[in-house]
């Protein structure tokens, strides 16, 4: 940490030194721990367990949402996702058509130049 006291005696210099050394030690220790195989295996398993747990909860919430949407006669989340996906495919197809049109126009322009 910084020392703002300039040429004056800093009464907190020792405390700062201790804090800096503690930080360095903690950093080295944690970096060593997260690099071990035991940590990697535990971390990965915890990661997967968390995903599985939240997934179950999300599925339950989604099914309630689907039921409510159907009951209210409004589009469900799944239907909206399907619609968005189709629109994406449509956008890609339009972009393809645009590319082909641009190519045809370029060829026509080249031909006109040759004539």
């Amino acid at each position, binding site marked *: *940490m910084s020392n703002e006291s300039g040429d004056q005696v800093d009464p907190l210099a020792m405390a700062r030194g201790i804090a800096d050394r503690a930080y360095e030690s*903690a950093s080295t220790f944690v970096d060593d721990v997260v690099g071990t195989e035991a940590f990697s295996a535990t971390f990965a398993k915890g990661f997967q367990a968390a995903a599985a747990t*939240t997934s179950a909860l999300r599925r339950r919430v989604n099914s309630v949402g689907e039921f409510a949407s159907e009951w209210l006669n409004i589009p469900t989340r799944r239907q909206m996702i399907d619609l*968005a996906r189709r629109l*994406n495919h449509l956008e890609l197809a339009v972009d393809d058509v645009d590319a082909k049109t641009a190519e045809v126009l370029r060829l026509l322009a080249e031909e006109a130049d040759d004539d």
Partner: protein
Amino acid sequence: MTDTVGERVFRRAGKTWRATTRPFRTWRAVGDSFDLPVGLTPREQVWALNKTRLYRYAPRVPPDERHRVPLLLVFAAINRPFLLDMRPGNSFVEFMLDEGFDVYLLDWGEPGPEDAEMRLDDYGAEYLPRAVRRVLADSGAEELSILGYCLGSLVALLYAALENDGPLRNLILLTPPVDTSHKEDSLLSSWLDERWFDVERFAANLDGLLSSSVIENGGKMLKAVANYVGAYVSLWDRIDDPEAVRNWQAMHRWVHDGVPLPAEVFRQWVADYLWSNALVSGRHVVRGEPVRLSDIEVPILNVLAKFDHIVPNGQSLPVADLVGSDDVQTEILTAGHVGIMAGHKARHVLWPTLAAWLAERSGDSG
């Protein structure tokens, strides 16, 4: 000249006030970082497809002083690309515009659940070729240079290999995670090792997207104390320097403003790239077409960060041996994975290196 008693008292009072309010000012600076305006260089959107946007930055030099070949920036899909355009006076984009480049940026945007089935290959084989076509149409150029950063460089490599007879003139790779057989210094490889990580089951449980907070905290865990504690100590130290605080806030905002990743992209990256090293082994096939890095024959600048804890140097160094290009330059800069582009030395080290290398290969001005 000696100070009067009044001046000394006044100075001491100011110092005491600054010291007393330092915790509050630090706390406030952290909170304010999320509202800090970033990415302010003027630009216009020239193309959009799904969530992807292509921007062209307003040129800052007259047309006759500009390089003929435009530059397309391709950033990693897990972060916002404003790292390349942080703040006026501290912006890579601004620097390259001043150097006479016509700069375009491909922003992948924020995927939604409808993009859950997108693959990493789609970025390189579906979106990037379309963006390239738009850059050429918009600029009127026949060739372009591409700069890919981190996962963006992987996408750029895919494109360069698949479209090897295309309009690509130069390729710049920043910290490319290519040869993943080098696992020795990679914590990510260790955490996601197939001995204990079941990526198929994990991806199936994601409901389509890997959340940005998981990506953010996974990245921070690689240097846990530095990221969770050191970053704030650094702000505390510099709280009296407004410019340093603004730069810190911009970086803090960038770190905490990530985007989710389609689950299939994550699954493919882990299974095909991290575990199978398919890109290097030549087994990677995109839409029935094998991806051969040896097909890439354009000039390549491969830039590595010496202290990169996300993409170890061993993963990026083999690029020179894998591609078919005769003109490959490898630079190892003294920086970290992010600091290489956004650190305080970047303006004097990386940016001029990139500009000089590109200028030599971007045709005559005008």
